[in-house]
């Protein structure tokens, strides 16, 4: 019984260390991937006669709708659409012109062992640093009133480092993960809209 108790004391100590380190060593730093060029609205090819469009935005996590994130990022998406200048009016009203602009951002983990990496970092009190990358695939669908559909995509990524890990190459450090998500949303939507505007079928 004495051995059992000593074993349990050690187990409790380990439990405390793991729990504390998971909580405390989570010094996560977010970096916005630098591969996607930050599109300035002035670089987007404007149509001669911009038309109105009903906007339908959905944020997905691994292909499944994420209603909370959709609510959180809707304003960023609407601002990017307005800034692009390729639509006269963009809003939720279905009677605007009959045209639909669908924006879908799908957040896909590019590394399935994110939790394992975080756990390993925690167990070593942050010494074994790790980087986890999240991909963001933006699909822009424009459906004209007569039903013609143009689809374009753009891709982006956020790298999150945990523990003693240097900055990823070709990435810009964000003040917080929250800021990184808002930046990526704006950049990937503008890139998707630029691809749309470059298509003769849209113009």
């Amino acid at each position, binding site marked *: 019984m004495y051995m059992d108790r000593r074993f*349990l004391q050690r187990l409790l100590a380990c*439990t405390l260390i793991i*729990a504390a380190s998971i909580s405390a060593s989570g010094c996560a730093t977010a970096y916005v991937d630098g591969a996607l060029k930050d599109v300035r609205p002035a670089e987007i090819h404007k149509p001669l006669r911009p038309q109105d469009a009903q906007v339908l935005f959905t944020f997905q996590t691994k292909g*499944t709708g994420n*209603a909370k994130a959709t609510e959180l990022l809707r304003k960023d998406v609407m601002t990017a659409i307005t800034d692009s200048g390729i639509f006269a009016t963009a809003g939720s009203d279905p009677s605007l012109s009959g045209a639909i602009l669908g924006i*879908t951002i799908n957040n896909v983990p590019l590394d399935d062992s994110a939790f394992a990496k975080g756990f390993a970092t925690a167990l070593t009190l942050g010494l074994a640093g790790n980087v986890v990358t999240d991909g963001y695939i933006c699909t822009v669908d424009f459906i004209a009133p007569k039903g013609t559909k143009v689809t374009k995509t753009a891709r982006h990524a956020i790298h999150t480092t945990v523990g003693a890990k240097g900055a990823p190459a070709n990435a810009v450090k964000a003040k917080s993960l929250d800021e990184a998500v808002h930046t990526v949303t704006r950049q990937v939507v503008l890139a998707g809209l630029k691809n749309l505007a470059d298509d003769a079928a849209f113009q």
Partner: protein
Amino acid sequence: MSDSKFVARFAAAALVLFSGLLSGCASQKLAGHQPSVDSVQSIRNSAMAPINVGEFKVAPTANAKIDKVVTVRGSQLTSPNNDSFSGYLRESLLAELKSAGKYDPASTLTVSGQLLRNELNAAGFSKADASLGAKFSVAREGTVLFDKDIVTQDTWESSFVGAIAILDAINHYTDIYSKLLQWLFADEEFKRATAGQGSR
């Protein structure tokens, strides 16, 4: 301290420590329904006449509790629509119809519903599932044109980490309302019952 007391205290301490790590342990309301491009386009392209949305409530044959709360790993999910999931289903249908330009509160054609099933099971470490079912009715000036039970379900990979499992469960559970409505809109009898006068 006796060994048994020590073991009990150890178990309690470990539970408290890991519960914070491995679960969310909170109560939260679902976010509002988000119509998708595909669903809006399919409704728009259908021959559906503008329609009103009537009463949605829990079915008299179902347990009233299914209208109030579903749980996942100790976290409670509730509806933002008067804490009623039948109300959430109504608002989801309303959002779809409004986005497709097919909602008309003055229409004599009305769709209403009764919640029959509402389940979320995400306790397992590898698999989780949800199911949602409702009886939908379409009537015009008191004449019932459509009356059908529609049930849908979803199964997905879960995680032993509570925080991950809960977020996944919320997303899949919210998404199942879209799936149920897609089944409704694709139903041939529903299409016939809601078709515009010139389309029948």
